[in-house]
């Protein structure tokens, strides 16, 4: 019973950790990035004028390198944002234009990896990558020419012909309807931005939980180097995900209490029955001169020994399953399809993130349960009346 309790707590917590990890991974990894650097005045309006370094712009390569120099950061890429329309002549769609470096972007986000048809846009070319939803509403296919219209920073209206190089599909309809990816230099030209003027540097941090710390560190470093920028981690950009992670943390404790709280009664009941079956033994020990304290201690020790066995059994069933579902997530796609959680796309799998802390906490809880459950039976055993019991009364 304790072994099963241990198994269920550790596996469920591992799964919930896996869910959170996947949610954060997908929620930040598809497009957002775990870390973003903006001009100090970019948030919250996200004005296209608020480029890093103001009107003069900045040494983009130097800034990217400075960001990448942080030990927690794996990769960084510059971005430009714009809004406007994409039109095929017969149909028109509103779009958010994302100017990306086609070589660097895939190191930070997975959106370009979601290419479904065609190919990626090339540096310097008037090409764009659109989402599957947008392609459908436009009736556009790779190779089609479209008109792109975007307000430029000088007050004019930039417009030019672009070729749809490819179509991506992330599975997130909103994303696939909204974002069109354009080579950063082509978008800068369209919006009358100098090559030094960008809106954002997005960076990836392999361990999302280090992002907030890295953001703080980076913020100080960049400021020291004379860049007037703000650094935000996904935790600031997507507070609801942090909340969910905290909620799931709290849920772990509730789960621990429920499972072992229930086990306590089962174990106590079993032990009480065992105590009753061994009443002659306890009566004999008492008659021979064992003090009640000795009986209590021996029952408690026995419970702890059984707890250790239960832990061994629990670990023996838990760890293989844990490693297995970590390496090869249990596929439930026959049961239900992809789903979204707080806007993050989720696969229908049970994937376990190693809940190391919980394996220890659950072990402690198991011992506490065994010991607590044994207290009442132990006292009962010590209070057995030896004379009457041995006389069979």
């Amino acid at each position: 019973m304790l072994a099963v309790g241990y198994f269920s707590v550790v596996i469920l917590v591992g799964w919930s950790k896996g869910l959170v990890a996947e949610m954060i991974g997908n929620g930040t990894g598809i497009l957002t990035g775990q870390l973003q650097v903006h001009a100090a005045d970019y948030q919250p309006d996200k004005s296209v004028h608020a480029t890093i370094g103001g009107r003069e712009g900045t040494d983009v390569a130097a800034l990217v390198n400075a960001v990448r120099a942080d030990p927690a950061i794996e990769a960084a890429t510059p971005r430009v944002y714009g809004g406007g329309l994409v039109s095929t002549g017969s149909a028109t769609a509103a779009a958010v234009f994302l100017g990306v470096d086609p070589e660097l972007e895939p190191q930070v986000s997975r959106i370009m990896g979601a290419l479904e048809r065609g190919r990626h846009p090339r540096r310097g070319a008037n090409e764009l990558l659109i989402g599957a939803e947008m392609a459908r509403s436009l009736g556009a296919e790779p190779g089609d020419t479209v008109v792109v219209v975007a307000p430029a920073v000088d007050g004019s209206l930039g417009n030019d012909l672009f070729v749809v190089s490819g179509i991506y599909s992330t599975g997130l309809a909103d994303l696939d309807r909204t974002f069109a990816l354009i080579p950063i230099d082509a978008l800068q030209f369209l919006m009358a931005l100098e090559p030094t003027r960008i809106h954002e540097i997005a960076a990836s941090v392999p361990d999302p939980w280090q992002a907030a710390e890295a953001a703080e560190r980076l913020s100080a470093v960049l400021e020291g180097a004379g860049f007037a920028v703000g650094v935000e981690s996904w935790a600031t950009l997507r507070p609801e995900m942090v909340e969910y992670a905290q909620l799931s943390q709290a849920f772990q404790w509730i789960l621990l209490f429920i499972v072992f709280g229930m086990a306590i009664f089962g174990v106590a009941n079993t032990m009480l029955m065992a105590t009753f079956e061994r009443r002659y033994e306890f009566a004999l020990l008492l008659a021979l001169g064992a003090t009640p304290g000795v009986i209590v201690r021996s029952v408690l020790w026995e419970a702890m020994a059984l707890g250790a066995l239960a832990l061994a059994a629990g670990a023996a069933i838990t760890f293989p399953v844990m490693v297995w579902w970590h390496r090869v997530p249990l596929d439930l796609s026959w049961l239900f399809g992809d789903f979204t959680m707080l806007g993050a796309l989720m696969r229908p799998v049970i994937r376990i993130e190693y809940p190391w802390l919980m394996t220890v906490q659950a072990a402690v809880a198991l011992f506490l349960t065994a010991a607590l459950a044994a207290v009442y039976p132990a006292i009962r055993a010590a209070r057995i009346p030896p004379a009457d019991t041995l006389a069979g009364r």
Partner: protein
Amino acid sequence: MTKQRMPAVKTADVWKVFEHDGLAVEAVRGVSLDIEPGEFVVLAGPSGSGKTTLLNLLGGLTRPTRGGVWIDGRDLTSMSERELAKLRLERVGFVFQAYNLLPVLTALENAEFSLLLRGIPPDERRRRVEELFAVIGMTGLEDRRPAKLSGGEQQRVAVARAVVGKPALVLADEPTANLDSAASDALLGVMADLNRERGTTFVFATHDTRLMERAKRLIRLVDGAIESDDVRQDMGG
């Protein structure tokens, strides 16, 4: 001045009344006894006469309703459960009618159990039990578990356990009840030998008339009270 002799166990007007279905059952009624060290006493009486209850009172396993019990001059009625347990451990040996041995332990482990509870080191325990096993004819059976021993052998292990700690008195409640007559005789012989050779004080309850013959002192109990208390001629040797 001669050293004052202290009874191994003494009772003064001891009563035990049980509450049973709202009725008061007077199991022991005003028994006063002195049992000296080295005595071999048989407590006789029909079933229900209060033998078991009296033995339990003598050994501090049951508290009297009224009256006093002293072992080695120490008043049992004023002791806590813990103190009583310690006193039983150090000064009293019990042999019960049945369920004497812990089934999971070997004969030797059962016999040395009270020494273990007292914290005596293993070598010493083993030495003392083996010495005793030689006296009671159990040598060679040390590693058997109770299920692999005859009833008589089991009771001898129980006697060894009761005696091994050199208690002030050994209380045996119908120890031969489940034995055939040959085994009963042998067990009684073992106890008589220990009494003679080691001076162990025995109080032995039985309703088997044949065994009463071997008593040096025979106390007859009827309805919880002493009917007669005879010291008999030594049976010799």
